[in-house]
């Protein structure tokens, strides 16, 4: 049984249909890629998946439970973490504090008003471990807004990882990165692969094709093709759009 199972997810804003009828299933520990042109509804699908948007109709099962329409914090607590295409960090906080706030242990103490957060070295070391995993160990004390772009992207992922998620959703993680940055990210993603379920929206095809186990192609709010990277290489839509870059 799939970990995530979307059945007939339909999203409409006013008279604009963004997702027509999306069916998708993602297996446990699978790395599932989503690609498609701009405006195809990829991010909206993520928003449904993480509770940011309510589907107009359709069902979304997470481990057998229908989570469609639950608020973001409920879905996050079920182990779904995400990064954002437009980076959403706590800019005034240091890298360490960004990660610290994301820790589930910290969240459990969120209503603690009596103890000083800074006094707890347990959170600190836990956060630093996560930062080390994404290669930011030596930048823990720098404010998020002062980090270079590539490091901010890495921090986005660190914040998501800090939640110890079962499902990690990455929305265009390579956007704005140079070749080196993409390589670094690919290394990181490959390290994570197999440890948790990953869903990745990506325009960079070589990135996606070398990472994903299976890929769904979204177009006009519908899944127009799906399969392993190898199968999809023969797909006309994929061929037409970006093969040069892929090879």
């Amino acid at each position, binding site marked *: 049984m799939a970990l995530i199972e979307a059945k007939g997810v339909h999203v409409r804003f006013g008279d604009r249909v963004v997702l027509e009828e999306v069916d998708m299933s993602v297996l446990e520990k699978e790395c599932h890629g989503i690609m498609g042109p701009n405006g195809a509804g990829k991010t909206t699908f993520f928003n449904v998946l993480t509770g940011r948007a309510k589907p107009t109709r359709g069902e979304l099962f997470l481990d057998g439970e229908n989570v469609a329409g639950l608020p973001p914090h409920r879905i996050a607590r079920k182990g779904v973490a*995400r990064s954002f295409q437009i980076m959403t*960090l*706590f800019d005034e*906080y240091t890298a360490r504090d960004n990660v610290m*706030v*994301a820790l589930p242990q910290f*969240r459990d103490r*969120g209503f603690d*008003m009596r103890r*000083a957060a800074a006094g707890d070295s347990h959170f600190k070391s836990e956060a630093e471990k996560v930062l080390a995993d994404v290669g930011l160990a030596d930048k823990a004390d720098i404010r998020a807004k002062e980090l270079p772009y590539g490091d901010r992207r890495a921090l986005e992922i660190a914040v998501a990882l800090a939640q110890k998620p079962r499902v990690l959703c990455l929305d265009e993680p390579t956007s704005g990165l140079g070749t080196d940055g993409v390589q670094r990210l690919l290394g990181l993603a490959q390290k994570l692969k197999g440890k948790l379920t990953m869903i990745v929206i990506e325009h960079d095809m070589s990135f996606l094709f070398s990472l994903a186990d299976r890929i769904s192609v979204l177009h006009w709010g519908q899944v127009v093709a799906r399969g392993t990277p190898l199968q999809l290489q023969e797909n006309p839509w994929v061929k037409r759009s970006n093969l040069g870059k892929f090879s």
Partner: protein
Amino acid sequence: MNGASPNSPDAARLITPTMLIVWLLLATIPLWISRIGLYPYLGIEILIWSIYALSFNLVLGTAGLPSFGHGAFFGIGAYAFGLCQFNVSSNLWICLVVTTLAAAFAGALAALFISHRRGIYYAFMTIAFGQIFWTIAIKSHSITGGEDGLLKIARLPADFGFVSFDLKSNVSFYYFVLAVFVVIVIALWRLTHSPYGRVLSAIRQSETRAAHLGYKVWFYKASVFAISTGLSGLAGGLFAMAQLAAFPDVMSLHQSGYIVMMTLVGGGLVSFWGPVVGVFTFLIARDVIGAMTSAWMLWFGLLFIVIVLFKPEGIAGAFRSIVDSAKAKARHAQGMSALRLLFRS
């Protein structure tokens, strides 16, 4: 960041050196305030408004919620203190607890409606609730005395069981308010630097991100609003004691605007002490400029415009920048981005 930088040693302290200096300075005020041409009552006003501004800044500066109707809760506190004294008990402590709870309850009620809103809609909902409470206060003659106010509120004695202090003189009342101020400062400092305060500050920086980290954002917003309004109400109760009466005027939109102004002028967005600095500036300017010209609001308004245009980080921020000139730019930028965050979704 509101308060000490989260990783400085002060953040983990219950009482910081700055607090001790501030308290000590405040404790000497009754000794010299008359000599510089001011009067002891001004000291009381400054302390009460400082408590109010610090509580307000919990919402504005720490959690980044633009509340423009806070005066209502200050006023509710004032009325609750008087009504409790008349109808429930003449014990000071009971009355102060009732006062705080009444204002917190009113705040929680408003918070249920507004906490799912953001930005401009949040601001307007707070104005609406402020006006609703204000109108009720003015129109309920039989309970609040309407425009005439609720008069003959007594300064109840502070009874500790073994010893009881009479607060009728302005000096003894000043020291009582100072004691409350000390407690509130410690509590708010700790709260700001607790995990709860961290989460609030995170919500200010990105509500969206906080929600996707599993935080029940609306509940945090609602709870901090209730805490802040409760403490504002406590300040209102003290104000009723100071004035020996409670008037609807403090609940008006103007007065709610002034508390925003004091907090921002002082630098509440970048500093824990900003609101206190703002209250000092505002009340002393009122008395000093007010003694020279009847148009003090005109001049203060112009001063305010200049500060918003050129020093968005406020007086406390600007002062710290002078002390540490290398950080001047950073502080300015911080003031700007803090302002920006208030209205981002």
